[in-house]
C-alpha cells in the first residue's frame, strides 16, 4: 500500500449528498478481475454523455462539460471535497480503487458510509471527516478561488487552507500507523497467529458444530 504522509493537493468540490458507490464506479466495470485501471471510469455516468462499457477507449468518449470533474480548473485534483454520507451503498472496493487510480489521495466530507470509509484506508486513500460548517466553508473557498489547494498532514492530523487556517481530524492509532508507513495489514495480523490458533482451539472444543 502507498504510504500517506503529507499531501498538498488541488481540491475538486462535488456538491451533492449521499453519493453512492454505484455512482462512483458503475457496476459494468466491476467485471474486471484486476485492482487497477478504474480511474478513467470514475463517476462514469456523470462524467461522460454516452453509456460506458469496459474495454471502450475513454479518451474518445463525449465528456459532460457540466460535471465538475471535467472543469479544466480542477484537472489534476488530489483532494475530493464532498457532502454527507459519501460512499453509501455497495461494499465494492472498486470505489476507492477508482478514486485512487484517478489521482485522489484524500476525500473530505462531513460523514462517510462505514464500509467505504473502511475500504479507503486499505488503499492509501485518506477519508477525512470535518464538521459540516467547515466543509461548507471549504466549498465556498474552493469555488471562489481557482487553484485552491489544501495541505493534509497525517502525522499532525491537520487540514490547512491556503490562508493558513488549520482544522484537526480524528483517526485511530492503528489506521494512522498503517497509513503513515504503508504497511501490509495481513503481515501485521499474522504476528498474532498464535493468538488466533489458541482462540480457534478453544472454540472448537466449545462449539464443535462451527468446525465441520
Amino acid at each position: 500500500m502507498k504510504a500517506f504522509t503529507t499531501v498538498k493537493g488541488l481540491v475538486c468540490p462535488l456538491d451533492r449528498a449521499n453519493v453512492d458507490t454505484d455512482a462512483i464506479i458503475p457496476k459494468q466495470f466491476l467485471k474486471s478481475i484486476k485492482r487497477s485501471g478504474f480511474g478513467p471510469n470514475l463517476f462514469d455516468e456523470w462524467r461522460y454523455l454516452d453509456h460506458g462499457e469496459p474495454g471502450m477507449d475513454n479518451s474518445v468518449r463525449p465528456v459532460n462539460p457540466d460535471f465538475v470533474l471535467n472543469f479544466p480548473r480542477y484537472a489534476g485534483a488530489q483532494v475530493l471535497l464532498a457532502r454527507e454520507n459519501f460512499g453509501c451503498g455497495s461494499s465494492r472496493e472498486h470505489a476507492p480503487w477508482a478514486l485512487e487510480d484517478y489521482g485522489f489521495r484524500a476525500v473530505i466530507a462531513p460523514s462517510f458510509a462505514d464500509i467505504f470509509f473502511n475500504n479507503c484506508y486499505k488503499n492509501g486513500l485518506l477519508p477525512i471527516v470535518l464538521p459540516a460548517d467547515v466543509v461548507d466553508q471549504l466549498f465556498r473557498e474552493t469555488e471562489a478561488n481557482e487553484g485552491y489547494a489544501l495541505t493534509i498532514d497525517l502525522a499532525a492530523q491537520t487540514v490547512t487552507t491556503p490562508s493558513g487556517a488549520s482544522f484537526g481530524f480524528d483517526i485511530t492509532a492503528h489506521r494512522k500507523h498503517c497509513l503513515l508507513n504503508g504497511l501490509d495489514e495481513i503481515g501485521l495480523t499474522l504476528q498474532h497467529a498464535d493468538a488466533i490458533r489458541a482462540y480457534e482451539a478453544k472454540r472448537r472444543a466449545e462449539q464443535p458444530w462451527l468446525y465441520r
Partner: protein
Amino acid sequence: MTAQTLYDKLWSSHVVHEEADGTVLLYIDRHLIHEVTSPQAFEGLKLAGRQPWRNSSIVATADHNTPTDHWDEGIKDPISRQQVETLDANIKHFGALAYFPFKDRNQGIVHVVGPEQGATLPGMTVVCGDSHTSTHGAFAALAHGIGTSEVEHVLATQTLVAKKSKSMLVRVDGQLQPGVTAKDIALAIIGKIGTAGGTGYAIEFGGSAIRALSMEGRMTLCNMAIEAGARSGLVAVDQITLDYVKGRPFAPSAEQWEAAVAYWKTLVSDEGAQFDAVVELKAEDIAPQVTWGTSPEMVTDVNGRVPNPAEQADPVKREGYQRALNYMGLAAGTPIQQIGIDKVFIGSCTNSRIEDLREAAAVIKGRKKADSVKLVLVVPGSGNVKAQAEAEGLDKVFTDAGFEWREPGCSMCLAMNADRLEPGERCASTSNRNFEGRQGQGGRTHLVSPAMAAAAAIAGHFVDVRTF
C-alpha cells in the same frame, strides 16, 4: 455482571486480540464468497504466497453475473464469463466447505443460499464482500459486508481488523395490517431515520411485530439495515430461528444439536441492556411503502404524493430532492398511485425467498399483467427456492399472468447481466437500491414489497395492495 446487548455478546465472544486504541482482531466463522469482489483477493493471496487460514469456513456461489435465462447457452458476455470462471478456478485451487457454481441446483444469491444451506448459524460471525451481508443477522449472527482487501485479510488470517460499533434498538410493536410486510417496515424505518441514520451502529430489531415475522421477513429487514447506514442488523434467537435452522445441510448434527440450541438461546439482549440509541415504530401505523426518489430514504406511503423540494428547509436536501425528481421524471405533488410503470422486478436478496414469491402470487391469482407493462421478471433467489415454488405451482401462477419465470441470480437488482432497464424506463422493484443507474443507465427504480410489485404489474401503476 452488567446486562449485555446481543451485539455485545456476539462481539466479545469473537475478540482474539485488542489494541490500546480499541482496534480488535475479530475472529470470522463463516466467509461467504461470490465472483465480483473476490478475484483480486485471491490474486493477492497468490502473489504473497499465502494459503487460506481455514478453507472450511468458505461457502461460495456465482450470482451477480449469471444470466437468468438460456442457461444451456452459458454466459455470453465474455468479461462476465471470465469472472465466473475465475471463481471456479480459485475455489478449485484454494478449496471451500461448499461451492455452488453457475447452473448447480443449489446455486443462487449468496444471501439466500447461506441461510438456506444452514451455513449461516446463530452466534457466528459472517462476512462477505457484499454490503447485504447484514441479511444474516436475522439469525443472531454478527454479519456485515467487507471490501476486497478485507476479503483477502479474512482468507489469510481468519480475522478482521475491526472497531466496535455503537448499538441501536429499533423496536416495532403491535400488529401489521394485512398486506403490509417486512419490506414496508424496513422502508418505513429508513424513511424515519434516513440512509445515514444507522451509520456507526449495529441495529437490533425487536418488539412484538418483529417477533411475529418469519425468518424470511427477518432476513428482508436485516438485509435493508445497510440502506439505513448500519453495517449489521440483528434479530434475537427464538423458536422461529431454531425451527428454520433445524435439519439444514450444514446445521449441527443430531448429537450436537442440543448443545448448540442451549447456547443459541442465550443470544438475546439481556433485560435492561443499554443501547446507545432507541427508535420506536408502531406496526399499525405502517402502510405499504413506495420510494419516489434515488435514495431509499426518499420514500412515502402508497397513499402519499411526490414531495415538493421547495418545502425542504435544508439547501443540500432541497437540491438532492430536485435532482432526484429530475432523474425520476416526476413532478412534485403527483399522487403515488398515478405513477405508471414499464417494468416490474420481483427478486434480489431482499425479496426472492419462497415467502416473497407466495405473497406476490397470492395477489395476482387469476389476473393478468397490464398491457402497458412491458416486462415482469420473477427471479427466484436460489435453485432451491425455484424448485419449491414450482412444487407449489407458483411458476404457473406467474406465467399465466404474463410474468416471466427465470433462473436464480441477482439479475435486475444491479443489472450486471443482461436483465436491465433502458434509459427512462420506470420499474416497480422488490430490490433494495433505487440509486441512479442501479438497474440500468437512466432507469428509474421504485422500491416496494413483492405484493405491491405484483399488484402494480396487474394495474400498470402503483395501487394500495390492502384494498386491491
